[in-house]
């Protein structure tokens, strides 16, 4: 409620500003060009002090998530430490990225800090909507000597660093976000059910299909495996992309600096057809609407025997009282590839700064605090799974894992081969949603080969234009 004043002020400021620019450009065409030179970071001088931005107020945009929920109670500590007031706005995950995109596109700087993932940087870093955090990290006046950026797993740090050149690998260029929590995509299963049926998790993809099909009994409203299937890019990135990579498939190949879609390679067609077959034979009935909450709900209710999705998404369902099957869940890396690959797709929830923010120092202090050792350790005691700091993971987090059979083992098995399996490119969301649409079409009976050919053709063209 307190922010209504802000909106009104923005309205007045905006109105005045708009009046001074030529008509068509003022209203309707031409976005803001944010200052992205790092000048804001360099303005901060002198010794580091948490109270440097005391008395200011920032807004952060988040999606409801175990991470966010774990941090919510700690926000008052931040305010105490820095004198900065924080208002956290929440948008449900289904709408989150649309909201985030639209807000950043608007260039209003309404939210100073936002939760984001690596893919997001690819598309929305280039227009200059995100602040490069590298100058902030390097400025000792702005960053605490205790921060220890190197403590964050290197794979994660590089996943949020990119130079915006399509096809160029991650790890060079600006630091667009600081990794906060991360997820590996593995199988969570109902140990109780597996025990009663005398089965073990599958080690190969064909076995997984067989196992899941065996565990499916529609008359009891029970099915083998849940994974996402909705019309969204998010359908591709967890279980599908993980197993896709393990089977040796690539999304794009780079030919002469140009990306060429490879979703229709023979092995990709073969795998995709099997994946869709799995969804039909042993997946949820309305698979094409399934998002991760649906998957984990069914696991928690005992309807689904397995879920192939983020470990941190299934993790909270095993907390006592969180679901019907709490205490009965266990984790497994999922099937290896034919060559024994445990390639796993990575998702990092990171914190990024809005380039249009008017409180950049305060925003940076918040990011620094949230990704710092103290706060992350405290959050881990709630439901914050997979902290990005090695010190926190090995320290506070491991202590919580006793009641989560296989969680740590699974994590350790896949972590070395866990990275972002997608090729960085600026039309990630659109082309990846098209991919999900293709899966749905194949699910509805279209020929996998021809459908994927069409997809690859269309995506190659989209990237070229």
């Amino acid at each position, binding site marked *: *409620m307190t*922010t*209504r004043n802000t*909106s*009104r002020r*923005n*309205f*007045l*400021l*905006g*109105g005045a500003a*708009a009046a001074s620019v030529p008509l068509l450009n*003022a*209203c*309707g*065409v031409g*976005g*803001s060009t944010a200052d992205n030179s790092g000048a804001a970071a360099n303005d901060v001088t002198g010794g580091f002090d948490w109270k440097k931005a005391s008395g200011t107020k920032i807004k952060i945009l988040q*999606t*409801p*998530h*175990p991470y966010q929920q774990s941090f919510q109670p700690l926000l008052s500590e931040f305010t105490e430490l820095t004198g900065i007031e924080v208002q956290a*706005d*929440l*948008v*449900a*995950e*289904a*709408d989150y990225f649309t*909201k985030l995109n*639209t*807000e950043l*596109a*608007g*260039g*209003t700087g*309404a939210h100073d800090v936002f939760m984001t993932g690596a893919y997001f940087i690819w598309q929305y870093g280039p227009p200059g909507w995100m602040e490069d955090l590298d100058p902030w990290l390097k400025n000792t006046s702005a960053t605490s000597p205790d921060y220890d950026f190197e403590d964050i797993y290197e794979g994660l740090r590089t996943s949020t660093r990119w130079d915006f050149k399509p096809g160029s690998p991650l790890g060079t260029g600006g630091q667009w976000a600081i990794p906060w929590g991360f997820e590996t995509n593995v199988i969570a299963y109902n140990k109780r059910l597996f025990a009663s049926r005398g089965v073990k998790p599958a080690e190969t993809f064909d076995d997984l299909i067989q196992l899941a099909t065996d565990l499916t009994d529609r008359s009891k409203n029970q099915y083998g495996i849940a994974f996402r299937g909705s019309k969204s890019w998010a359908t591709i990135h967890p279980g599908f992309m993980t197993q896709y990579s393990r089977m040796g498939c690539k999304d794009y190949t780079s030919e002469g600096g140009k990306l060429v879609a490879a979703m229709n390679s023979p092995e990709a067609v073969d795998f995709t057809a099997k994946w869709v077959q799995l969804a039909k034979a042993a997946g949820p009935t309305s698979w094409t609407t399934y*998002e*991760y*909450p*649906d998957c*984990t*709900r069914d696991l928690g*209710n005992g309807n689904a025997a397995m879920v192939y999705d983020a470990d941190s*998404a299934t993790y909270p369902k095993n907390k006592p009282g969180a679901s019907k099957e709490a205490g009965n869940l266990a984790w497994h890396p999922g099937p290896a590839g034919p060559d024994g690959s445990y390639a796993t797709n990575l998702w990092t929830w990171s914190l990024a700064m809005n380039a249009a923010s008017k409180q950049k120092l305060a925003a940076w202090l918040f990011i620094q605090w949230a990704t710092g050792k103290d706060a992350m350790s405290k959050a881990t005691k709630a439901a914050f799974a997979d902290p990005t700091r090695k010190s926190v993971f090995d320290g506070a987090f491991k202590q919580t894992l006793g009641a989560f059979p296989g969680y740590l083992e699974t994590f350790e098995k896949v972590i070395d081969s866990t990275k972002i399996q997608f090729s960085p490119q600026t039309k990630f969301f659109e082309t990846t949603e098209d991919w999900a649409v293709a899966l749905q079409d194949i699910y509805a009976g279209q020929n996998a080969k021809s459908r994927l050919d069409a997809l690859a053709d269309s995506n190659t063209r989209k990237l070229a234009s």
Partner: protein
Amino acid sequence: MAREMMPGRRRFTAGSVGADLLILLWFVFSLFPIVWMVLLALKTRSQQTSTYFAFSPTLENFGTVMSRRGEDLTSVNFSGALLSSVLNCGGAVLVSLLIGIPAAYAAGRWKYRGSEDLMFQMLSFRFAPELMVVVPLFVIYNQTGLFDTTYGMIWVLQLVTMPLVVWILRSYFQDLSPELEQAALLDGYTRRRAFVMVALPLVRPGIAAAALLAFIFAWNNYVFPLILTDSEATTVTVAVTKFLGGGGQAYYNLTAAAALIGALPPLVLALTIQRYLVRGLSFGAVKA
């Protein structure tokens, strides 16, 4: 039975029963979802996916939805959205009335050049695909700071409320004999006083019907707040859909409770203006 459906003489036959059965069938279909929503809203979380009709009802969900507790669970600030909806829609209707009544009066009283164009333009707003206007508005709003504000919503909702108000009221003004106002003029009253003294009181039912119907349609609108608001000025319709994916958890009972609360104001308003509904819904084309 069939003959009875025609105007004129009434006759009671065995067929009546058949007709009643048919109509009953429709109403089972028509009311079942609403009844189901009410039932779901009365369930606890553990009952929401496990039972259909047998459960112990609780009113707790309504309290949860409206309170901070619901926001913590689902990340939807529903009471805030209710307030925003009231402000957005109330403001939009008010603006439409202030601007629409004179325009409707002019269009209903005089034949002047461009009046038909004006009315047709109004009507075309009713039938225009919303996104055609909303996408540029989204860009404009972001540049001018109208994004996610009540002012911005009031402005864009004119697209919904203004045509309704102008068309309905024009039909009422057209029905009103101009001689009443002429009599007032000859009684010695100025045009403005004649309008206020004679015309306005007589179209009051029309104004009430148009205002309430416009409020209902503004309330029920989804595309505008979906695109042009975020957290500050977002409305009930957007908030209800947020429950579906809210918090990564499925609170269907809360969703149903929110849906019920969100559906209630239009239902109550519609029942109060039922007599004028047909005329309003058809933009004055059908005078019941």
